[in-house]
């Protein structure tokens, strides 16, 4: 029942928002529904909701983890976006990069899609039927595409197109993967196993291994595209750099996780079928490759939103590496998924503030953020330190745990590459971020409209606080949830 509510609430709200004409009312709807969603999600920690549709829709540890992160992020982003939408004046506006005029998409559409996006992501986290999972992930694509095209100019359009095409192809492959899985499930006569996670795990022994492997690879590539693993990440920097910062925050913080969840599900089946090692190798390969590619593009990256996007590629690689190493590292990966979502979302929100004040995305033209926007500047530096895994912030612990996982298994080469990539990326980001934060601003580039509105600071500050706390203390329930999630990955 609760799950049904969780799923329906955003949809209803979306419909409502679409037909609301008054801005204030619409924004209230947005925040209210987000808050309601969040409260319900919190409630699920107290009472585990009953499954729906005969087990197609249920909430397990993994799903609950990702659902909670998504919901919390969405609430904060919603709050932030209220201020954002107020700042985004209607009608024709000047583009910051090229001298062209453009309009924004109608706010109603934006809000509606935002809420539908939430609904789709919720569905992803709770669906245990593979077909349903696929539907949900495809829906996230379709719901988020209009969000990326919020600023109606050709760059965002190009980004949207690439996003659509690349992700659709990936998702299509994932569909093929689902069919392969079905074939694998219809082994030697008898009644084919229904494609529901628990059934598959129970009767994993009966699965037909070659088809299972093929299915795994297809799903890996398919959902991996959505997740942003190199070399399938190509849509990611474009979309993140052109979308409004609130959307980028959601894409990086929530959407990528959902795709990751899709991959984890099939890995769970592989584990159950005794093919865990096969899957883990693929995970490790993708992980290292993603970190390497991210390093290539982060060093000397002239556009700070793209830099953050590539950092997301890096961290998706980290997650996949952690899962691939298994054991302690799997726990680390789960923890890191949480840490990365919170930190990256915060960074994108702050990037939005900086962009609003300086009207440029070039790291070379932004100077002295700490002077022009003190709060944002502090949060910007904090976020940078957190995302690069400096103590005392959460990512440090998770990255340390993943390293322990690597060395526990004597994968010294992996550990070496891992540390090297982290160091290179740190240098790259440090160069850009410090250059932006410190120094004295160039005179003309500092029109902070009304300084720093509260709604633009509070969400990021909250996120920063959470990340800091997670670096010093991991609450018991969370730890149990993480452990449970890691256990399902063997």
């Amino acid at each position, binding site marked *: 029942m609760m799950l049904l509510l969780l799923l329906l609430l955003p949809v209803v709200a979306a419909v409502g928002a679409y037909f609301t004409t008054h801005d204030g009312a619409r924004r209230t709807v947005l925040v209210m529904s987000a808050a309601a969603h969040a409260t319900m999600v919190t409630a699920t920690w107290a009472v585990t909701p009953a499954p729906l549709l005969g087990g197609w829709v249920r909430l397990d540890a993994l799903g609950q983890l990702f659902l909670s992160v998504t919901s919390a992020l969405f609430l904060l982003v919603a709050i932030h976006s209220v201020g954002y939408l107020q700042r985004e004046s209607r009608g024709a506006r000047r583009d910051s990069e090229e001298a062209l005029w453009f309009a924004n998409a109608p706010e109603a559409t934006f809000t509606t899609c935002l809420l539908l996006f939430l609904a789709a992501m919720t569905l992803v986290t709770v669906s245990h039927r593979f077909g349903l999972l696929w539907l949900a992930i495809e829906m996230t694509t379709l719901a988020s595409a209009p969000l990326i095209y919020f600023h109606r100019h050709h760059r965002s359009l190009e980004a949207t*197109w*690439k996003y659509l*095409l*690349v992700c659709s*192809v*990936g998702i299509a*492959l994932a569909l093929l993967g689902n069919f392969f899985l079905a074939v694998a499930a219809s082994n030697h006569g008898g009644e084919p196993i229904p494609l529901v996670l628990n059934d598959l795990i129970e009767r994993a022994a009966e699965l037909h291994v*070659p088809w299972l492997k*093929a299915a795994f*690879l*297809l799903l*890996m*590539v398919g959902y991996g*595209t959505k997740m942003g693993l190199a*070399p*399938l990440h*190509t849509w990611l*920097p474009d979309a993140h750099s052109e979308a409004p910062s609130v959307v980028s925050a959601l894409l990086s913080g929530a959407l990528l996780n959902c795709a990751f969840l899709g991959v984890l599900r099939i890995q769970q089946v592989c584990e159950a079928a005794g093919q865990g090692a096969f899957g883990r190798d*693929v995970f490790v390969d993708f992980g290292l490759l993603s970190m390497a590619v991210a*390093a*290539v*593009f982060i*060093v*000397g990256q002239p556009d700070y939103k793209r830099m953050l996007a590539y950092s997301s590629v890096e961290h998706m690689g980290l997650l996949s590496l952690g899962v691939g190493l298994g054991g*302690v590292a799997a*726990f*680390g990966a789960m*923890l890191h998924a949480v840490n990365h979502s919170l930190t990256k979302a915060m960074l994108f929100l702050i990037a939005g503030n900086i962009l609003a004040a300086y009207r440029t995305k070039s790291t070379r033209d932004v100077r002295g953020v*700490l002077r022009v926007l003190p709060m944002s500047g502090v949060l910007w530096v904090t976020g940078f*330190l957190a995302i*690069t895994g*400096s*103590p*005392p912030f959460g990512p*440090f*612990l998770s990255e*340390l*745990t993943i*390293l*322990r996982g690597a*060395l526990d298994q004597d994968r010294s080469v992996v*550990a070496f590459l891992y*540390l090297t990539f*982290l*160091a*290179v990326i*740190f*240098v790259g980001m*440090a*160069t850009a971020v*410090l250059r932006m934060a*410190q*120094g004295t601003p160039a005179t003309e580039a500092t029109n902070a409209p009304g300084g720093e509105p509260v709604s633009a600071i509070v969400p990021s500050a909250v996120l920063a606080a959470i990340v800091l706390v997670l*670096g*010093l*203390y*991991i*609450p*018991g329930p969370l*730890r149990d949830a993480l452990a449970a999630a890691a256990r399902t990955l063997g």
Partner: protein
Amino acid sequence: MLLLLGATVLLVASGFAAVTIQQSPRWCNAVGASGAVAGCLLGLLSALRALLGASDSSLRLAWEVPGGAFFVQMDVLSAFFLFPVLGLSALAAVYGSEYLRHYQQRKWLGPPWFFFNLLVASMVLVVVARNGVLFLIAWEVMALASFFLVTFDDESVEVREAGWTYLVATHVGTAFLLAFFVLAGRASGSLDFDRLSVAPTEASLLFLLAVVGFGTKAGFAPFHVWLPEAHPAAPSHVSAVMSGVMLKTGIYGLVRTLTILASPPAWWGWLLCGIGLVSGIGGVLFALAQRDVKRMLAYSSVENIGIIALGLGIGVLGVATGVPALAVLGFAGGLLHVVNHAVVKGLLFLAAGSVAHATGTRDIERLGGAMKRMPYTGAVFLIAAIAICGLPPLNGFVSEWLIFLGALHGSISPGRSAAIPVLAVIGGLALIGGLAAACFTRAFGVVFLGTARSDHVTRAHEPGLAMRLPMLLLAAGCVLIGSFAPLLVGGLAPVIASATGLQTPQVATHLVSATRPLQYVVWSALGLLVVVALLAGLRRALLADRRAEVGLTWDCGYVQPSARMQYTASSFAQPLMHLFGVLLQTQQRTVTPAGFFPRAASLITKTPDVCAERLYQPAFRGIGRGLSSLRWLQHGRVHLYVLYIAVTLLVLLVWKLG
């Protein structure tokens, strides 16, 4: 233990308080400084109790982070390192309370105080932490806090670049420490120090990791490149703390590592001696080449870290070859030099700071004659200079003497494996001593003596009491440590025991072989002072009823000597620069006078750090170039992106299923 934790909390709290009330600079200053001082005093109290009681008090709480446990312990080693850390920090805080006041028009004073107190607190935690995760967190907080202090003046490009260098260096060093702790904790699955278990096959690897990781912080050559950048950039009281004690946390880490990795092979000692020689000689030579006084001091820190490394190296050799005398004397010298360098270098940075702050320049070629304007600062600088050159009767001499004595013990010990490096140490230490004398006569002479080379000095004035008092106290410290050396060295016994793994009584017996001669040293030092007094009296008596005229400096008959005719610092150092040109790679630009009516001739020399120029910058450039050569991957053609997907899929299918 709780007392110490209370001190830490107090430090952090006062830091926060300083930020919250930064609207009024006076109160911000007062709260920050007094909080720092109070915290340091509390901490010193508990350290003192630990050192006198010599009973390890520890505290172990469960901590809900993977691999982490809040496990802190105060043993003699920690207590020993806490003394310089807290003492110098307190004095620096007092100094800073006046020093920072001159920024209050331009800047918020909250952040510097917050980060300063955070820095002190994290150093305390580093020294007492007994769990890998806790240690690493404290370690990195220390690095970050000091980074933000270094970039306090972030308006200037140099400071920003210095900060960048520092941040990158320390972060890379930490990466090595990550590997170190994880490897050490792998067997037992716990990162608590008392459960780190080391397989003999891995010991050497771990040692190398530790040398790089901790050496980067301590400033071992060739990992020292951040040091001459960062220390001049920071405000002077921060430079004093960074150079005086923050580097020493690296030494502490190394010593702690040695206690964890028992039974070192001899080549560890050789390695440490080698590093010590390179750092020592290289450091002092580069110091000799600098024009920026604080940069010069930073390089001199590299030199002294090298001396400490020599001491530790001899000690490790002693442990490895089973010559207790060697081990005891080496560690005694090294550890005592940790304290001495903290006092002396702290004093030097404070003095240099007040000069720079009074004259507005750090370029020694523009200074001169400051003695007349700033007698106190000049006097303490002279004391510090004598001490840091390891000359009697001050503290610097004692520690270098100990290391020398250890080396001599090694040289007369029958074995050969110990003798060879030890003799290298003797020669190297002698050379370092001579060069250091050159370096600091130059610094003191050119800055404080002669006549002013620019009107920077003529405007100079002695700083206020809050800045003068710490300097005087530190100067007193130089004298006191020098005079009570036998007592102190005797007191080191438990510390050395914990560092070498020998038994305390055994250590004590061997220490006697150092303390008894030390008494002679002290007596002769006292005798020296008496003789000085007598001679001074004699001289006064002789000149009592005679004419003492004041004239011009003898100038070979030249009538009007001007300040610009004085010997410059560069020309003073030139012969040595020339001798060691191969190491220094000094770059020179000369415009020689030519023709019958020559234009203004000029000579510009500059000695950038060789490691930075020849090692790191090329490496970084290479990496950058290599990475950017792969950027075509993201060419923007969407259909090729789809091709990536297809190819990946096919490759995987063929590779994994084929």
